[in-house]
């Protein structure tokens, strides 16, 4: 009653219901797209072209769809990496570093032709996973042992990994044929098979399988249950005797590993060689995908595909309508914010008091 100066209050909803989250997300999306369209039209894109590029080119043409699906693969993996760490409130901001570490491991296997050809690709991917896990491991130790904030350490570890890549590309792994700072092309045994549809390769099946496994683990196993409890209250979890240390270790290493796997996937799937351009914007995308999906692994698949579509459409807008990069980022930000705000209202409702409250006397 002492807070009489606040006229409106937020009330937590007792039940979110089944339909409300879906409707909220759609309403947020619609609002975001409306505002974005206005921005784009103001930036000089003809209104009818918008529908063409966004809807038709991205979803309804085979080429557009193929590009979207290809881009979605690594986004699914990094989204999962963020999502499972988020479950236990571990903020992995070093997704790009772990991708680089995974890429280094995959490149090592590919260009040194480690092991028989039949197992070359799986071995590269397994080591990519291990590389990512290895890259996050010191940050985990620092966090658990000394309480050092993982946001800072994982973020900085990303720069370290990139410097290591540069060291290799300007050194031992430089392509002798062109002397550009890129590695030699991966032999076919280290590449994913093409599915004969744009650049889509068998890696997408792997990504979907990983997402399903993560979903089963997070939603239906003791691991996921423990992770949820730890995320909500580390203290209660520890005091009721849950294996806090073990679960934290497993999930953080898996988070790094999945990002590493994404690095391996990009090289073995589309780029086929290590270069200095691997992970532009994956950190941002990973956090967005995980956040929008509320850390649900299957939700991550949906948000990753949506993000990939936005990127595909953005590329088209940039190239054909010379819309500046800044406007693209602005549009993406508007859509994202709209959805996040809409999600907030699935949990809270605005409550307006009938009249100003009177103080008791």
């Amino acid at each position: 009653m002492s807070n009489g100066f606040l006229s409106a209050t937020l009330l937590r909803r007792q039940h979110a219901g089944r339909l409300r989250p879906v409707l909220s997300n759609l309403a947020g999306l619609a609002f975001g797209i409306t505002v974005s369209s206005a921005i784009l039209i103001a930036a000089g894109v003809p209104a009818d072209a918008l529908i063409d590029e966004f809807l038709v080119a991205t979803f309804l043409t085979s080429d557009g769809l193929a590009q979207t699906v290809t881009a979605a693969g690594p986004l699914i993996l990094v989204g999962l990496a963020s999502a499972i760490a988020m479950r236990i409130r571990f903020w992995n901001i070093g997704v790009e570093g772990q991708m680089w570490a995974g890429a280094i491991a995959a490149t090592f296997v590919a260009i040194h032709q480690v092991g028989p050809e039949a197992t070359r690709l799986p071995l590269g991917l397994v080591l990519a996973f291990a590389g990512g896990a290895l890259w996050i491991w010191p940050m985990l130790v620092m966090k658990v042992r000394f309480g050092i904030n993982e946001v800072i350490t994982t973020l900085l570890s990303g720069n370290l990994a990139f410097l290591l890549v540069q060291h290799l590309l300007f050194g031992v792994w430089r392509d002798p044929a062109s002397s550009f700072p890129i590695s030699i092309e991966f032999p076919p045994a280290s590449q994913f098979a093409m599915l004969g549809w744009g650049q889509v390769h068998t890696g997408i099946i792997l990504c979907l399988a990983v997402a399903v496994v993560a979903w089963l683990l997070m939603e239906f196993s003791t691991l996921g249950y423990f992770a949820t409890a730890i995320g909500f209250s580390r203290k209660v979890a520890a005091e009721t005797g849950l294996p806090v240390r073990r679960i934290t270790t497993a999930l953080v290493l898996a988070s790094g590993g999945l990002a590493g796997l994404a690095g391996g996937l990009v090289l073995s799937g589309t780029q086929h060689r290590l270069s200095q351009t691997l992970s532009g914007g994956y950190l941002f995308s990973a956090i967005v995908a995980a956040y929008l999906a509320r850390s649900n692994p299957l939700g991550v698949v949906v948000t990753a595909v949506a993000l990939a579509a936005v990127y595909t459409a953005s590329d088209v807008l940039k190239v054909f309508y010379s819309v500046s990069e800044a406007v693209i980022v602005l549009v993406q930000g508007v859509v994202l914010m709209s959805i996040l705000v809409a999600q907030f209202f699935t949990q809270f409702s605005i409550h307006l008091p009938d009249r100003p409250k009177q103080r008791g006397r």
Partner: protein
Amino acid sequence: MAAAEPSPALELHGVFKAFGGKPALEDARFSLAWGEVHALVGENGAGKSTLMNVATGVYAADAGSQAIDGVAHLPSSPQEASAAGLAMVHQHFRLVERFTVAENVLLALDGKGGARSIGDAARLIREKSAEIGLAIDPARVVESLSTAERQRVEIIKVLLLGARVVIFDEPTAVLTEAEASSLLRFARRLADSGHAVVLITHKLKEVSRHTDRVTVMRHGRTVLAGAPIASLDEAEVGRLIVGETVIPTARPRTAPGARLLEIAGLAFPGQMPGEGIGIVLKAGEVLGIAGVGGNGQEDLVACLAGSLKPLGGDILLDGRDITMASPVTRRRRGLRVIPADRFASGLVRQMTIAENLAMTGIAAGAYGRSPRLDRRRMEKAAAAAIADFDIRGAAPARRTELLSGGNAQKVLLARELDAGLKVLIAHSPSRGLDVRATEFVRGAIRAAVEKGAACLLISEDLQEILALSHRVAVMNGGRIAGIREIDAVTSEWIGGLLTGHV
């Protein structure tokens, strides 16, 4: 200095205040004269702080009247009270740690008293500090100050704001003995210079030498209004504080069984010098540990639950050493805990009732072999527990935070009072619950003990201790000040140990 003297500094009459339907003040009254030090004493929850918070405008009273220096005035905010010359020095200081003393004072003054810069504030602090004889350096950062020094900053702050009635909430609780006596001498000087001073305290014995009059509160009522300290004897005050309700009732006692919990020489940080805690708890008995909050109860519970490593001593559970064991091991051996704050360390508020109930059983494999989690079995077990413990408003899939306090406590009980229970550590198990829920909780604990478990009951609520315990101990300064069979417990004995400065 009788209460009838014209225009007392502060007068409160017929004050009522309820929180969520539970009365905290019922017809409370208080009268304070200029130039006196007035002790306001009572147990935790007796309404002392609530009454003073009403006086200083923090809470609005439901009914009642108030006069400041003879003028009827119910301040509706701390700012209004402060403008009328009424201020409270809180137990938990309200200072910005990273700021200097002068910056903190400048922030609080907010332009009053002509302070426009840090230099002005520093000058005011130095003048006031010299005037009242409390040394403080305005340039020091609050972070680097000791507790006593921070308290001085608070005092200077309220005096600079123009306070003439100064209310200290448990001022000595955080101080060493030497600091406490220096503070009390200061309170005396303040009163002698024409102010009026209120000391809210549990420890009447400690403040009695510096006090003129005493008001005692119990269960929201004023049971002794402004009696001169000279006319009181200690036993009488002890009885007034605790009340007449101390009637140890005979209770069924199973034959004293095996020694289930043995604590010897248990030491933890913050204990008063002396020997550590030693307790033996047998099957079929409840040992109640009474005491004013903040006397080491939290640490004792944490040492037993396994979340705090003791500095020394041994804890044996059913004959096996668990002093350094993990919470899981303790659980496996039969230790169960009902923490004081059920959502800080017992239940996860955002998870469902079924999930909270299953929390301890999953690791033991009660809900399918890891990694598979048998959600259906969890829901079934939860439905059974909801029926057994009569948890109202509950469904297995409902989030626990949506339950009322009493029903959330029942969820915790349903989980902790399981078949493996040997020793129950219950910390204020019925705090904040209504009468029915309280009875339910106590009944459940009694039933568990009659079946052969042992219970260590830690509570600040004497009613709760007396309702359940076979033996009663009193905790003070992190040590056991005394222990008696329930039949030998008297209000004088408890009152003396509770308020005494041992």
